[in-house]
């Protein structure tokens, strides 16, 4: 039974405590508010774009931020969606995101690879790692369009599982610089070309988010990117899920111990003068030519 009110439980925390629907919803919202407050994710007059995919994580962030700031007219929330062109997957999630935003009267901007780059993801992935192409291009479009929308922050649905996976992937690939950019507030320092990304669900597990989204009626039918299963991330996810089963709290420990060293990593990378201007497109980049232009060149010359 629920530890607080003796009602039927819907969730069992790692500590072993059980919570009923109302206590779980309160626990979840309190933890997200604390993340926003403690890590100073949102200022009093911020305009925020939420990067939505139509999935449970991003729509949960959108729903939560709209509720938290509904009385505060100075914080304005919009939604931004990138349609990569993935047949049998993206159409359904775009439709769900459109419906979700319309019902709540949230402005939604949609941009596509087809219109921006002249191709769909499906048409260029043969012989390539789809997630590597998609990640680079999607991040580029999210940043350029968030900047064009004039927002101060870009909120994403990244959660505890995503972050634990990324930390481990960066360790396995010896990519300290990429780890330094992680955290609930991404990036190392402010730069006029970059809209800083915030992750309000940083300390919430995928299971907690799914439970919350289900209880709030946010979940649509299960819809998985067809490229997901073949990704490196998916292998790390499965490994961590196995560990979590045997040693509950593993993912939480990875992220919280990482948070202790993150200030040192950011300090190490700060002031390295690594943000340049891409020689081809003028976007901010750590190299002379940005990753987006490199990927586009590879696709063009194939």
């Amino acid at each position: 039974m629920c530890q607080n009110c003796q009602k039927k439980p819907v969730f069992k925390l790692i500590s072993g405590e059980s919570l009923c629907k109302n206590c779980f919803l309160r626990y979840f919202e309190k933890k997200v508010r604390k993340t926003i407050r403690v890590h100073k994710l949102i200022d009093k007059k911020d305009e925020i774009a939420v990067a939505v995919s139509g999935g449970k994580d991003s729509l949960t962030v959108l729903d939560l931020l709209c509720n938290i700031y509904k009385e505060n007219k100075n914080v304005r929330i919009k939604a931004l969606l990138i349609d990569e062109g993935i047949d049998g997957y993206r159409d359904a999630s775009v439709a769900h995101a459109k419906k979700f935003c319309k019902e709540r009267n949230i402005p939604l901007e949609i941009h596509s690879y087809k219109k921006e780059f002249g191709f769909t993801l499906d048409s260029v992935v043969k012989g390539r790692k789809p997630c590597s192409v998609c990640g680079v291009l999607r991040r580029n479009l999210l940043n350029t369009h968030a900047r064009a929308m004039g927002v101060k922050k870009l909120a994403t649905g990244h959660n505890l599982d995503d972050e634990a996976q990324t930390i481990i992937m960066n360790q396995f690939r010896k990519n300290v610089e990429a780890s330094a950019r992680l955290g609930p507030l991404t990036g190392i320092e402010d730069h006029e070309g970059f809209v800083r990304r915030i992750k309000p669900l940083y300390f919430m597990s995928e299971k907690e988010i799914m439970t919350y989204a289900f209880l709030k009626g946010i979940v649509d039918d299960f819809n998985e990117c067809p490229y997901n299963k073949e990704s490196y991330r998916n292998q790390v996810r499965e490994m961590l899920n196995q560990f979590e089963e045997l040693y509950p709290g593993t993912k939480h420990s990875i992220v919280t111990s990482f948070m202790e060293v993150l200030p040192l990593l950011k300090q190490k990378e700060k002031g390295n003068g690594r943000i340049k201007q891409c020689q081809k497109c003028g976007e901010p980049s750590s190299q002379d030519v940005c990753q987006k232009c490199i990927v586009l060149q590879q696709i063009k010359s194939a």
Partner: protein
Amino acid sequence: MFLWTMKVYYDRDKKDYTVTAKNVKEMLKEMKLLKNAVIVVVNGTVVTEDYIFSKNDKVKVLSVVSGG
């Protein structure tokens, strides 16, 4: 506590499985699913791994994996 044989719908596979189990924990073990990778819905309500099945329970298992 009774052992029930029931049909369980798993959304990631988009199909029903026939499973014999007393509770959610046993059911997930039989389906070879990890409890941190799914939530279980019985008669429209989310339940924990300790839930003990009753006759005619309608059971759905929902994957928590992000779509991508």
